[in-house]
Protein backbone atom coordinates (compact mmCIF):
# COMPACT_ATOMS: atom_id res chain seq x y z
CA UNK A 1 0.00 0.00 0.00
CA UNK A 2 1.24 3.50 -0.85
CA UNK A 3 2.71 5.56 1.95
CA UNK A 4 1.71 9.20 2.05
CA UNK A 5 4.86 11.24 2.61
CA UNK A 6 6.33 14.64 1.82
CA UNK A 7 7.80 15.20 -1.65
CA UNK A 8 11.21 15.84 -0.11
CA UNK A 9 11.12 12.60 1.83
CA UNK A 10 9.78 10.63 -1.11
CA UNK A 11 12.51 11.72 -3.53
CA UNK A 12 15.15 11.35 -0.81
CA UNK A 13 14.18 7.80 0.07
CA UNK A 14 13.10 6.40 -3.32
CA UNK A 15 15.85 7.71 -5.59
CA UNK A 16 19.57 6.97 -5.73
CA UNK A 17 22.42 8.40 -7.77
CA UNK A 18 22.80 6.40 -10.96
CA UNK A 19 19.17 5.28 -10.99
CA UNK A 20 16.95 5.11 -14.03
CA UNK A 21 14.07 7.46 -13.33
CA UNK A 22 10.99 7.98 -15.48
CA UNK A 23 9.16 11.29 -15.18
CA UNK A 24 5.99 10.78 -17.20
CA UNK A 25 3.02 12.94 -18.10
CA UNK A 26 2.28 13.19 -21.79
CA UNK A 27 2.00 16.96 -22.28
CA UNK A 28 -0.34 17.06 -19.25
CA UNK A 29 0.20 16.39 -15.53
CA UNK A 30 3.96 16.76 -15.97
CA UNK A 31 5.71 16.06 -12.63
CA UNK A 32 7.54 19.40 -12.51
CA UNK A 33 7.82 19.77 -8.74
CA UNK A 34 9.23 16.24 -8.44
CA UNK A 35 11.85 17.16 -11.03
CA UNK A 36 12.71 20.28 -9.07
CA UNK A 37 13.09 18.22 -5.91
CA UNK A 38 15.54 15.92 -7.75
CA UNK A 39 17.56 18.99 -8.74
CA UNK A 40 17.45 20.42 -5.19
CA UNK A 41 18.71 17.18 -3.72
CA UNK A 42 21.54 17.20 -6.28
CA UNK A 43 21.07 13.71 -7.67
CA UNK A 44 23.72 12.69 -10.19
CA UNK A 45 24.24 10.35 -13.11
CA UNK A 46 20.59 9.62 -13.59
CA UNK A 47 19.18 7.93 -16.66
CA UNK A 48 16.09 10.01 -17.38
CA UNK A 49 13.22 8.35 -19.24
CA UNK A 50 10.54 10.51 -20.78
CA UNK A 51 8.63 10.31 -24.06
CA UNK A 52 8.47 14.07 -24.43
CA UNK A 53 11.36 15.73 -22.62
CA UNK A 54 10.33 19.33 -22.11
CA UNK A 55 11.14 22.08 -19.65
CA UNK A 56 11.68 19.81 -16.65
CA UNK A 57 14.03 17.61 -18.67
CA UNK A 58 15.86 20.69 -19.95
CA UNK A 59 16.36 21.80 -16.34
CA UNK A 60 17.52 18.37 -15.09
CA UNK A 61 19.96 18.09 -18.00
CA UNK A 62 21.22 21.66 -17.68
CA UNK A 63 21.84 21.17 -13.96
CA UNK A 64 23.97 18.10 -14.66
CA UNK A 65 21.71 15.53 -12.97
CA UNK A 66 21.40 13.36 -16.08
CA UNK A 67 23.99 11.48 -18.07
CA UNK A 68 21.64 9.44 -20.21
CA UNK A 69 18.32 10.35 -21.77
CA UNK A 70 15.81 7.81 -23.09
CA UNK A 71 13.23 9.72 -25.13
CA UNK A 72 11.17 10.01 -28.28
CA UNK A 73 10.55 13.74 -28.84
CA UNK A 74 12.61 16.46 -27.19
CA UNK A 75 11.28 19.93 -27.81
CA UNK A 76 9.56 22.87 -26.19
CA UNK A 77 5.98 22.09 -27.27
CA UNK A 78 4.63 24.79 -29.55
CA UNK A 79 7.77 26.90 -29.10
CA UNK A 80 10.84 25.17 -30.50
CA UNK A 81 14.07 23.67 -29.23
CA UNK A 82 15.17 22.64 -25.79
CA UNK A 83 18.40 24.58 -25.58
CA UNK A 84 19.87 22.76 -22.57
CA UNK A 85 19.20 19.41 -24.23
CA UNK A 86 20.79 20.68 -27.43
CA UNK A 87 23.77 22.14 -25.60
CA UNK A 88 24.36 18.81 -23.86
CA UNK A 89 24.09 16.79 -27.08
CA UNK A 90 25.91 19.29 -29.30
CA UNK A 91 28.59 20.53 -26.86
CA UNK A 92 28.69 18.12 -23.87
CA UNK A 93 27.63 20.91 -21.49
CA UNK A 94 27.51 20.60 -18.51
CA UNK A 95 28.46 16.96 -19.14
CA UNK A 96 28.20 14.49 -22.01
CA UNK A 97 24.69 13.18 -22.51
CA UNK A 98 24.21 9.71 -23.88
CA UNK A 99 20.92 9.27 -25.70
CA UNK A 100 18.73 6.25 -26.40
CA UNK A 101 16.26 7.56 -28.91
CA UNK A 102 12.95 6.04 -30.00
CA UNK A 103 9.68 6.80 -31.67
CA UNK A 104 6.69 7.48 -29.41
CA UNK A 105 5.22 4.12 -30.43
CA UNK A 106 8.49 2.38 -29.61
CA UNK A 107 9.08 3.92 -26.20
CA UNK A 108 5.38 3.47 -25.42
CA UNK A 109 5.70 -0.24 -26.09
CA UNK A 110 8.85 -0.43 -23.97
CA UNK A 111 6.71 0.85 -21.08
CA UNK A 112 3.89 -1.56 -21.98
CA UNK A 113 6.34 -4.48 -21.86
CA UNK A 114 7.71 -3.21 -18.55
CA UNK A 115 4.20 -2.87 -17.12
CA UNK A 116 3.31 -6.36 -18.34
CA UNK A 117 6.27 -8.06 -16.70
CA UNK A 118 7.56 -9.15 -20.10
CA UNK A 119 11.12 -8.66 -21.38
CA UNK A 120 9.92 -7.18 -24.67
CA UNK A 121 6.95 -6.07 -26.74
CA UNK A 122 6.24 -6.55 -30.43
CA UNK A 123 5.32 -3.81 -32.87
CA UNK A 124 5.47 -2.82 -36.49
CA UNK A 125 7.84 0.13 -36.62
CA UNK A 126 11.36 1.50 -36.98
CA UNK A 127 11.84 -0.33 -40.29
CA UNK A 128 13.71 1.79 -42.79
CA UNK A 129 14.48 4.56 -40.32
CA UNK A 130 17.83 5.64 -38.90
CA UNK A 131 16.54 5.01 -35.37
CA UNK A 132 17.17 1.29 -35.78
CA UNK A 133 20.90 1.94 -36.16
CA UNK A 134 21.54 3.85 -32.96
CA UNK A 135 19.76 1.88 -30.26
CA UNK A 136 20.40 -1.57 -28.80
CA UNK A 137 16.86 -1.83 -27.47
CA UNK A 138 15.19 -2.62 -30.80
CA UNK A 139 15.67 -5.95 -32.56
CA UNK A 140 14.03 -7.83 -35.42
CA UNK A 141 11.63 -10.62 -34.51
CA UNK A 142 9.77 -13.04 -36.76
CA UNK A 143 6.18 -14.09 -36.29
CA UNK A 144 6.18 -17.84 -35.59
CA UNK A 145 2.85 -18.16 -37.41
CA UNK A 146 3.19 -15.95 -40.52
CA UNK A 147 6.94 -15.37 -40.81
CA UNK A 148 6.43 -11.60 -40.97
CA UNK A 149 9.43 -9.69 -39.66
CA UNK A 150 8.46 -7.23 -36.96
CA UNK A 151 10.31 -5.32 -34.29
CA UNK A 152 10.85 -6.28 -30.66
CA UNK A 153 11.49 -3.43 -28.25
CA UNK A 154 13.11 -4.15 -24.89
CA UNK A 155 11.06 -3.61 -21.75
CA UNK A 156 11.91 -0.59 -19.67
CA UNK A 157 11.59 -0.92 -15.89
CA UNK A 158 12.76 2.30 -14.24
CA UNK A 159 14.10 2.12 -10.70
CA UNK A 160 11.65 4.90 -9.95
CA UNK A 161 8.67 6.11 -11.97
CA UNK A 162 7.17 9.48 -11.07
CA UNK A 163 3.86 10.89 -12.29
CA UNK A 164 1.62 13.74 -11.21
CA UNK A 165 -2.13 13.27 -10.72
CA UNK A 166 -5.07 15.37 -9.67
CA UNK A 167 -6.02 13.54 -6.47
CA UNK A 168 -5.40 10.79 -3.98
CA UNK A 169 -7.43 9.58 -1.06
CA UNK A 170 -5.96 9.01 2.39
CA UNK A 171 -5.31 5.34 1.64
CA UNK A 172 -3.14 6.35 -1.31
CA UNK A 173 -5.51 5.47 -4.11
CA UNK A 174 -4.85 7.87 -7.00
CA UNK A 175 -7.20 9.44 -9.53
CA UNK A 176 -6.21 11.22 -12.73
CA UNK A 177 -8.19 12.41 -15.73
CA UNK A 178 -7.89 14.33 -18.97
CA UNK A 179 -4.96 13.24 -21.13
CA UNK A 180 -3.52 10.34 -19.16
CA UNK A 181 -0.94 9.33 -21.76
CA UNK A 182 1.48 6.64 -20.71
CA UNK A 183 1.24 7.31 -16.98
CA UNK A 184 -0.43 4.08 -15.90
CA UNK A 185 2.16 2.01 -17.76
CA UNK A 186 4.99 4.14 -16.35
CA UNK A 187 3.85 3.51 -12.77
CA UNK A 188 3.36 -0.21 -13.39
CA UNK A 189 6.76 -0.53 -15.11
CA UNK A 190 8.59 1.14 -12.22
CA UNK A 191 10.33 -0.95 -9.59
CA UNK A 192 9.28 1.85 -7.24
CA UNK A 193 6.73 4.56 -7.96
CA UNK A 194 5.85 8.00 -6.69
CA UNK A 195 2.69 9.93 -7.48
CA UNK A 196 2.52 13.62 -6.64
CA UNK A 197 -1.03 14.97 -6.40
CA UNK A 198 -2.76 18.31 -6.39
CA UNK A 199 -4.83 17.37 -3.37
CA UNK A 200 -5.54 14.59 -0.90
CA UNK A 201 -9.22 14.03 -0.24
CA UNK A 202 -11.40 11.78 1.89
CA UNK A 203 -13.22 10.20 -1.00
CA UNK A 204 -12.43 9.96 -4.72
CA UNK A 205 -15.68 10.77 -6.47
CA UNK A 206 -15.37 9.15 -9.86
CA UNK A 207 -15.37 11.19 -13.08
CA UNK A 208 -15.88 10.31 -16.73
CA UNK A 209 -12.60 9.29 -18.32
CA UNK A 210 -10.74 9.03 -15.05
CA UNK A 211 -8.07 6.46 -14.33
CA UNK A 212 -7.81 4.96 -10.85
CA UNK A 213 -4.46 3.61 -9.66
CA UNK A 214 -5.08 1.54 -6.53
CA UNK A 215 -2.84 2.24 -3.57
CA UNK A 216 -1.41 -1.29 -3.74
CA UNK A 217 0.24 -0.51 -7.08
CA UNK A 218 2.09 2.58 -5.81
CA UNK A 219 5.05 2.99 -3.46
CA UNK A 220 4.45 6.55 -2.27
CA UNK A 221 2.08 9.48 -2.70
CA UNK A 222 3.09 13.07 -1.98
CA UNK A 223 0.92 16.15 -2.06
CA UNK A 224 2.26 18.88 -4.31
CA UNK A 225 -0.25 21.57 -5.20
CA UNK A 226 0.64 23.18 -8.49
CA UNK A 227 3.03 20.30 -9.07
CA UNK A 228 2.74 20.55 -12.84
CA UNK A 229 3.17 24.31 -13.19
CA UNK A 230 3.98 25.91 -15.62
CA UNK A 231 2.33 23.02 -17.47
CA UNK A 232 -1.29 22.23 -16.67
CA UNK A 233 -3.51 19.99 -14.57
CA UNK A 234 -7.00 19.61 -15.99
CA UNK A 235 -9.56 20.85 -13.49
CA UNK A 236 -6.95 22.79 -11.48
CA UNK A 237 -4.98 25.22 -13.65
CA UNK A 238 -4.07 25.95 -17.25
CA UNK A 239 -0.75 25.93 -18.99
CA UNK A 240 1.29 29.12 -18.58
CA UNK A 241 2.08 29.57 -22.26
CA UNK A 242 3.94 32.81 -21.62
CA UNK A 243 6.42 30.95 -19.48
CA UNK A 244 6.95 28.29 -22.15
CA UNK A 245 7.81 31.08 -24.59
CA UNK A 246 9.97 32.85 -22.00
CA UNK A 247 11.85 29.60 -21.37
CA UNK A 248 13.23 29.81 -24.89
CA UNK A 249 15.09 32.97 -23.85
CA UNK A 250 16.02 31.83 -20.35
CA UNK A 251 17.45 28.53 -21.51
CA UNK A 252 19.30 29.74 -24.60
CA UNK A 253 22.23 31.10 -22.60
CA UNK A 254 24.12 29.03 -20.01
CA UNK A 255 24.54 31.85 -17.50
CA UNK A 256 20.99 33.12 -17.80
CA UNK A 257 19.81 29.55 -17.26
CA UNK A 258 22.01 29.05 -14.17
CA UNK A 259 20.90 32.34 -12.64
CA UNK A 260 17.26 31.49 -13.24
CA UNK A 261 17.67 28.05 -11.66
CA UNK A 262 19.48 29.51 -8.66
CA UNK A 263 16.77 32.06 -8.08
CA UNK A 264 13.72 29.97 -8.84
CA UNK A 265 14.44 26.33 -8.09
CA UNK A 266 17.41 25.92 -5.71
Amino acid sequence: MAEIVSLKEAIGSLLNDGDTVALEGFTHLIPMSAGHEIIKQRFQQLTLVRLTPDLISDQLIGMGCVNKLVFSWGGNPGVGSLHRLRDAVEHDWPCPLEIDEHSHAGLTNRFVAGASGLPFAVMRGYQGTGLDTYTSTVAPISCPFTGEELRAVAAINPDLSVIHAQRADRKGNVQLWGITGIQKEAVLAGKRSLVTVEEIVDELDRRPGDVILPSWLITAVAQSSGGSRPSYASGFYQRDNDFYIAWDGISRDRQTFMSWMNENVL
Partner: protein
Amino acid sequence: MESTEKYTSDEMMSIAAARQLRNNQICFIGIGLPSKAANLARRLHAPDLIMIYESGTLGAKPTRLPLSIGDGELADTADSIVSVPEIFNYLLQPGRIDIGFLGAAQIDKYANLNSTVIGDYHKPSVRLPGAGGAPEIAGAAKRVIIMLRQSAKSFVDKLPFVTSVGFGSGPGDRRRFGLTGAGPTVVITDLGLLEPDPDTKELVLTNIHSNVSVQKVIESTGWKLRIAEKLEVTEPPTATELEAIRSLVSAGE
Protein backbone atom coordinates in the same frame (compact mmCIF):
# COMPACT_ATOMS: atom_id res chain seq x y z
CA MET B 1 -14.58 34.01 -55.51
CA GLU B 2 -10.90 34.89 -55.58
CA SER B 3 -9.92 37.45 -53.02
CA THR B 4 -8.38 40.69 -54.12
CA GLU B 5 -6.55 40.81 -50.82
CA LYS B 6 -2.87 40.11 -50.44
CA TYR B 7 -1.88 36.90 -48.71
CA THR B 8 1.35 35.37 -47.48
CA SER B 9 2.98 32.26 -48.88
CA ASP B 10 2.41 30.58 -45.49
CA GLU B 11 -1.30 31.35 -45.74
CA MET B 12 -1.37 29.89 -49.24
CA MET B 13 0.39 26.77 -47.96
CA SER B 14 -2.07 26.24 -45.10
CA ILE B 15 -5.06 26.85 -47.36
CA ALA B 16 -3.73 24.49 -50.04
CA ALA B 17 -3.24 21.83 -47.36
CA ALA B 18 -6.68 22.38 -45.84
CA ARG B 19 -8.23 21.82 -49.26
CA GLN B 20 -6.83 18.28 -49.25
CA LEU B 21 -9.03 17.23 -46.32
CA ARG B 22 -12.64 16.00 -46.42
CA ASN B 23 -15.45 15.39 -43.96
CA ASN B 24 -15.32 12.07 -42.08
CA GLN B 25 -11.70 11.42 -42.95
CA ILE B 26 -9.80 10.15 -39.93
CA CYS B 27 -6.74 12.33 -39.75
CA PHE B 28 -3.74 11.82 -37.44
CA ILE B 29 -2.32 15.27 -36.97
CA GLY B 30 1.16 16.48 -36.16
CA ILE B 31 1.52 19.78 -34.34
CA GLY B 32 2.50 22.99 -36.09
CA LEU B 33 1.68 23.41 -39.79
CA PRO B 34 -0.49 20.26 -40.10
CA SER B 35 -2.53 21.17 -37.03
CA LYS B 36 -3.18 24.64 -38.37
CA ALA B 37 -4.24 23.32 -41.79
CA ALA B 38 -6.54 20.67 -40.32
CA ASN B 39 -8.23 23.15 -38.02
CA LEU B 40 -8.66 25.48 -40.96
CA ALA B 41 -10.33 22.70 -42.97
CA ARG B 42 -12.74 22.12 -40.07
CA ARG B 43 -13.77 25.77 -40.23
CA LEU B 44 -14.26 25.68 -43.98
CA HIS B 45 -15.47 22.68 -45.96
CA ALA B 46 -14.75 19.81 -43.52
CA PRO B 47 -16.47 20.47 -40.18
CA ASP B 48 -16.77 16.71 -39.66
CA LEU B 49 -13.09 15.96 -40.17
CA ILE B 50 -12.10 13.49 -37.44
CA MET B 51 -8.94 14.79 -35.82
CA ILE B 52 -6.72 12.40 -33.85
CA TYR B 53 -3.73 13.67 -31.87
CA GLU B 54 -1.05 11.37 -30.48
CA SER B 55 -1.84 12.53 -26.94
CA GLY B 56 -4.92 10.33 -27.15
CA THR B 57 -7.63 12.84 -27.98
CA LEU B 58 -10.15 11.42 -30.46
CA GLY B 59 -12.48 13.70 -32.40
CA ALA B 60 -11.23 16.93 -30.85
CA LYS B 61 -13.08 20.06 -31.94
CA PRO B 62 -10.87 22.84 -30.63
CA THR B 63 -12.31 26.32 -30.78
CA ARG B 64 -8.79 27.73 -30.70
CA LEU B 65 -5.62 26.46 -32.34
CA PRO B 66 -3.89 24.03 -29.95
CA LEU B 67 -0.34 24.94 -28.98
CA SER B 68 0.77 21.37 -28.44
CA ILE B 69 -0.54 17.90 -29.22
CA GLY B 70 -1.58 17.65 -25.57
CA ASP B 71 -3.22 21.03 -25.24
CA GLY B 72 -6.08 21.18 -22.72
CA GLU B 73 -8.27 22.57 -25.49
CA LEU B 74 -7.97 19.23 -27.32
CA ALA B 75 -8.79 17.23 -24.21
CA ASP B 76 -11.78 19.38 -23.31
CA THR B 77 -13.37 19.16 -26.77
CA ALA B 78 -12.60 15.51 -27.61
CA ASP B 79 -15.27 12.83 -28.02
CA SER B 80 -13.06 10.68 -25.86
CA ILE B 81 -9.48 10.37 -24.72
CA VAL B 82 -7.58 7.11 -24.85
CA SER B 83 -4.15 6.18 -23.55
CA VAL B 84 -1.04 6.61 -25.66
CA PRO B 85 -0.61 2.82 -26.03
CA GLU B 86 -4.12 2.65 -27.44
CA ILE B 87 -3.47 5.45 -29.92
CA PHE B 88 -0.42 3.75 -31.36
CA ASN B 89 -1.28 0.07 -30.97
CA TYR B 90 -5.05 -0.05 -31.46
CA LEU B 91 -5.68 2.92 -33.78
CA LEU B 92 -2.58 3.73 -35.82
CA GLN B 93 -0.78 0.40 -36.25
CA PRO B 94 -3.74 -1.56 -37.69
CA GLY B 95 -4.27 1.02 -40.47
CA ARG B 96 -7.44 2.68 -39.18
CA ILE B 97 -6.12 6.19 -39.92
CA ASP B 98 -7.04 7.60 -43.34
CA ILE B 99 -4.49 10.39 -43.41
CA GLY B 100 -1.25 10.87 -41.53
CA PHE B 101 -0.49 14.57 -41.64
CA LEU B 102 3.18 15.30 -41.01
CA GLY B 103 5.67 18.13 -40.95
CA ALA B 104 9.47 17.77 -40.87
CA ALA B 105 12.69 19.75 -41.00
CA GLN B 106 13.93 18.12 -44.21
CA ILE B 107 12.68 15.96 -47.06
CA ASP B 108 14.36 14.13 -49.92
CA LYS B 109 13.15 13.31 -53.42
CA TYR B 110 11.52 10.07 -52.21
CA ALA B 111 9.59 11.96 -49.53
CA ASN B 112 11.64 10.50 -46.68
CA LEU B 113 11.66 12.90 -43.74
CA ASN B 114 14.24 14.07 -41.22
CA SER B 115 13.31 15.60 -37.89
CA THR B 116 16.21 14.20 -35.87
CA VAL B 117 19.61 15.81 -36.56
CA ILE B 118 21.47 18.01 -39.01
CA GLY B 119 25.03 16.74 -39.32
CA ASP B 120 26.53 13.70 -37.64
CA TYR B 121 24.18 11.82 -35.30
CA HIS B 122 26.63 11.76 -32.39
CA LYS B 123 27.95 15.29 -32.90
CA PRO B 124 25.15 17.08 -34.69
CA SER B 125 25.39 20.68 -35.81
CA VAL B 126 21.69 20.95 -34.99
CA ARG B 127 19.89 18.56 -32.68
CA LEU B 128 16.22 18.55 -33.73
CA PRO B 129 13.37 17.32 -31.46
CA GLY B 130 13.30 13.80 -32.91
CA ALA B 131 10.77 11.29 -34.12
CA GLY B 132 7.70 11.58 -31.89
CA GLY B 133 4.87 9.73 -33.57
CA ALA B 134 6.10 10.33 -37.13
CA PRO B 135 7.81 7.04 -38.09
CA GLU B 136 4.76 4.91 -37.39
CA ILE B 137 2.34 7.51 -38.79
CA ALA B 138 4.41 7.49 -41.99
CA GLY B 139 4.36 3.70 -41.97
CA ALA B 140 0.81 2.81 -41.03
CA ALA B 141 -1.56 5.63 -42.07
CA LYS B 142 -3.45 4.69 -45.23
CA ARG B 143 -1.80 7.68 -46.88
CA VAL B 144 0.37 10.57 -45.79
CA ILE B 145 0.22 14.29 -46.46
CA ILE B 146 3.39 16.27 -45.77
CA MET B 147 3.74 20.02 -45.22
CA LEU B 148 6.95 21.98 -45.01
CA ARG B 149 8.41 25.22 -46.29
CA GLN B 150 10.51 24.73 -49.42
CA SER B 151 14.16 25.76 -49.57
CA ALA B 152 17.44 24.25 -50.70
CA LYS B 153 18.17 23.54 -47.02
CA SER B 154 14.93 21.68 -46.38
CA PHE B 155 14.55 19.91 -49.75
CA VAL B 156 17.85 18.03 -49.82
CA ASP B 157 19.50 15.51 -52.08
CA LYS B 158 20.54 13.31 -49.17
CA LEU B 159 19.08 13.33 -45.68
CA PRO B 160 21.57 13.17 -42.80
CA PHE B 161 19.04 10.99 -40.96
CA VAL B 162 15.85 9.21 -42.03
CA THR B 163 13.31 9.70 -39.25
CA SER B 164 10.26 8.64 -41.27
CA VAL B 165 10.14 6.66 -44.48
CA GLY B 166 8.39 7.99 -47.56
CA PHE B 167 9.47 5.65 -50.36
CA GLY B 168 12.98 4.75 -49.13
CA SER B 169 15.16 4.60 -52.24
CA GLY B 170 12.27 4.04 -54.60
CA PRO B 171 9.52 1.61 -55.58
CA GLY B 172 9.30 -1.58 -53.54
CA ASP B 173 11.05 -0.25 -50.46
CA ARG B 174 7.87 0.29 -48.45
CA ARG B 175 6.89 -3.33 -48.97
CA ARG B 176 10.43 -4.45 -48.20
CA PHE B 177 10.33 -2.54 -44.91
CA GLY B 178 6.92 -4.02 -44.05
CA LEU B 179 5.20 -0.62 -44.06
CA THR B 180 1.48 -1.19 -44.42
CA GLY B 181 0.24 2.22 -45.60
CA ALA B 182 0.50 3.60 -49.15
CA GLY B 183 2.90 6.37 -48.13
CA PRO B 184 2.93 10.05 -49.07
CA THR B 185 0.52 11.20 -51.75
CA VAL B 186 1.31 14.92 -51.70
CA VAL B 187 3.84 17.38 -50.27
CA ILE B 188 2.45 20.85 -49.76
CA THR B 189 4.89 23.74 -49.54
CA ASP B 190 4.77 27.51 -49.58
CA LEU B 191 5.63 27.35 -53.30
CA GLY B 192 3.49 24.53 -54.66
CA LEU B 193 2.51 20.87 -54.46
CA LEU B 194 4.70 17.87 -55.19
CA GLU B 195 3.37 14.38 -55.83
CA PRO B 196 5.22 11.08 -56.19
CA ASP B 197 5.49 9.74 -59.73
CA PRO B 198 3.36 6.59 -59.78
CA ASP B 199 6.21 4.53 -61.27
CA THR B 200 9.45 5.94 -59.88
CA LYS B 201 8.03 7.38 -56.62
CA GLU B 202 10.19 10.48 -57.13
CA LEU B 203 8.48 13.71 -56.14
CA VAL B 204 7.30 15.78 -59.10
CA LEU B 205 6.12 19.38 -58.99
CA THR B 206 2.48 19.15 -60.05
CA ASN B 207 1.09 22.47 -58.79
CA ILE B 208 2.63 25.86 -58.40
CA HIS B 209 1.06 28.60 -56.30
CA SER B 210 0.12 31.72 -58.25
CA ASN B 211 2.78 34.41 -58.17
CA VAL B 212 5.51 31.76 -57.79
CA SER B 213 7.92 31.09 -60.65
CA VAL B 214 9.03 27.62 -61.62
CA GLN B 215 12.59 28.92 -61.43
CA LYS B 216 12.01 29.85 -57.77
CA VAL B 217 10.80 26.31 -57.00
CA ILE B 218 13.77 24.75 -58.79
CA GLU B 219 16.19 26.98 -56.86
CA SER B 220 14.46 26.05 -53.61
CA THR B 221 15.01 22.32 -54.21
CA GLY B 222 18.30 20.60 -53.39
CA TRP B 223 17.95 18.01 -56.14
CA LYS B 224 17.21 18.28 -59.85
CA LEU B 225 13.46 18.76 -59.56
CA ARG B 226 11.14 17.12 -62.05
CA ILE B 227 8.27 19.28 -63.27
CA ALA B 228 4.96 17.75 -64.35
CA GLU B 229 4.15 18.06 -68.04
CA LYS B 230 0.81 19.59 -67.11
CA LEU B 231 1.81 21.91 -64.30
CA GLU B 232 -1.29 23.31 -62.65
CA VAL B 233 -1.54 26.66 -60.92
CA THR B 234 -3.05 26.60 -57.44
CA GLU B 235 -6.29 28.49 -57.04
CA PRO B 236 -5.46 31.57 -54.95
CA PRO B 237 -7.14 31.83 -51.55
CA THR B 238 -10.76 32.90 -51.52
CA ALA B 239 -11.95 35.69 -49.26
CA THR B 240 -13.68 33.05 -47.10
CA GLU B 241 -10.48 31.05 -46.76
CA LEU B 242 -8.43 34.10 -45.85
CA GLU B 243 -10.99 35.23 -43.32
CA ALA B 244 -11.02 31.75 -41.76
CA ILE B 245 -7.26 31.45 -41.48
CA ARG B 246 -6.92 34.94 -40.01
CA SER B 247 -9.56 34.24 -37.39
CA LEU B 248 -7.73 31.15 -36.12
CA VAL B 249 -6.62 32.11 -32.65
CA SER B 250 -4.14 30.03 -30.71
CA ALA B 251 -5.18 28.56 -27.39
CA GLY B 252 -3.82 30.69 -24.60
CA GLU B 253 -3.98 33.88 -26.68
